[in-house]
């Protein structure tokens, strides 16, 4: 293992300390239990958004705390769901009296911990709603699994619903909007290399030099299929196809196209993929009206990428364009 770390057990704490020192204008960081809230929390009268998950997906979620996006984020150990006490304290710290929306990626641990936290928060008189993100089309038979995973769409949901909350929409409206985003978005990812969890010290799976994994998640879980490496264009086709067919996205649809790096893949390659994806969508009569390209929901140093499509309408476009000021995403301010 070759990493810029000190002690594997201090990775998350030292990262939080760095975030605290770098962004005092954006966030406040709390320890034991660990959570991050926006600097001006709680914002009175505004619905607050809280998300969280294992660390190792940076900038998600801590990097998305700030005006126009999340109010609070709970970082777990690397690739491990955070715990209910973190979520409860974050929920209490951001509640401005208009209720708190938990954005939960659909993983067994995340779902159970957030469920327990929501119960505890309701017990303390806070109105809490939860929405699940489960956009990963690579999980084929969701009847016989823990269900589809929450992946790339999480980033788009946090931005769009964050803007809606900032605009003054109610808890129910924000929850409905989040469910709409989840219903209209789909993702799929692939890996060129594995990644190494610091406290494990060896790669999460072994992937020979000339092979790739199609349909990976974001925790170094192996994917559904392993195959010989193909060209960027072929790989893009392999992801865009299932994503388009699943919803399905149709001729005349306007979409946001999100090409995400899993951490190790550089922008130069993401643009090659983006170019092919736009071409494929154009051939199907699907118009890319917004885009996001870069490392936003990563899997440590894994090389690979994911493609997310979200069907847009005027409301979603307006919310996407609204100002956002966070460490990981910033425009219009």
């Amino acid at each position, binding site marked *: 293992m070759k990493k810029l770390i000190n002690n594997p057990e201090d990775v998350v704490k030292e990262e939080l300390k760095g975030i605290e020192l770098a962004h005092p204008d954006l966030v406040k960081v709390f320890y034991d239990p660990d959570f991050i809230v926006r600097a001006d929390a709680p914002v009175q009268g505004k619905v607050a958004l809280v998300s969280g998950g294992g660390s190792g997906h940076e900038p998600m979620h801590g990097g998305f705390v700030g005006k126009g996006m999340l109010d609070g984020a709970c970082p*777990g150990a690397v690739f491990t*769901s955070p*715990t209910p006490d973190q979520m409860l304290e974050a929920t209490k710290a951001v509640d401005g009296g208009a209720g708190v929306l938990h954005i939960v990626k659909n993983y067994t*641990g995340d779902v159970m911990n957030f469920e327990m936290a929501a119960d505890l928060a309701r017990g303390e008189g806070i109105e809490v709603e939860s929405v699940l993100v489960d956009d990963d089309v690579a999980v084929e038979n969701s009847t016989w699994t823990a269900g589809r995973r929450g992946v790339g769409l999480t980033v788009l949901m946090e931005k769009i619903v964050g803007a809606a909350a900032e605009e003054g929409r109610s808890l129910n409206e924000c929850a409905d909007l989040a469910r709409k985003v989840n219903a209209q978005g789909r993702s799929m990812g692939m890996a060129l290399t594995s990644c190494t*969890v610091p406290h494990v010290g060896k790669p999460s799976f072994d992937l020979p030099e000339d092979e790739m994994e199609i349909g990976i998640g974001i925790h170094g*879980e192996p994917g559904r299929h392993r195959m010989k490496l193909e060209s960027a264009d072929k790989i893009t086709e392999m992801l865009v196809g299932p994503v388009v067919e699943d919803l399905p996205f149709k001729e005349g649809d306007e979409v946001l196209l999100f090409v995400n790096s899993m951490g190790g893949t550089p922008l130069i390659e993401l643009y090659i993929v983006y170019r092919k994806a736009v071409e494929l969508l154009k051939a199907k009569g699907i118009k890319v009206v917004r885009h996001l390209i870069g490392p936003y929901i990563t899997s440590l140093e894994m090389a690979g990428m994911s493609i997310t499509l979200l069907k847009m309408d005027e409301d979603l476009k307006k919310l996407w364009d609204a100002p956002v000021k966070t460490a990981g995403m910033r425009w219009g301010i």
Partner: protein
Amino acid sequence: MAITRDDVLKWVTTFAQVIEENHEMLTNLDREIGDADHGANMRRGFKAVLEKLPSVEDKDIGTILKTVGMTLLSKVGGAAGPLYSTMFMKAGTSIGAKTEMELNDWAQALEAGTVGIANLGKAQPNDKTMLDALYPALNALGAAMGNGTSTGEALQKSADAAHEGMLATIPLVARKGRASYLGERSAGHQDPGATSTYFLIKSAADTWKDC
């Protein structure tokens, strides 16, 4: 002979030691079909439990087990955190304010914990989870008690059944948790949750064999 508060403390301590000795093995099992954190998470949780135990060592068994559960809830994370936490909290609630328990109390506590895990995880037998070690352990314990077997022997039969249940997860295709994303590729691997659960039952059999 009854199982005393001290025996319960010894059981938890023994289990914590077993986790400490086997955390790498558990993480490696999880690396094969999950996300490579089960051993590390359990180890972190039970280190915190060992620090917490002295503060409740003069309390009743229910309080001790519920304290273990609350500590795990805030220290383990992942899926194992809420599941093990529920196991200990439900078991603690079932036993209540006793400082000594009979084998029957333990059987009821184990059942309460198992039901709690099944409800929270929404899993069925043969989904390749902790339950595949727990249900056999529970059934074997009930059968042994029905036959009037001694406490030590009944607990050993329960541990043997958990062991068999753990091994029986190897050919199963996972239907819950992160291993389920692998589909057929999850077959051929032993479930890490069922493995740590076997250690839990075995630790009880080992520490309470003369009770």
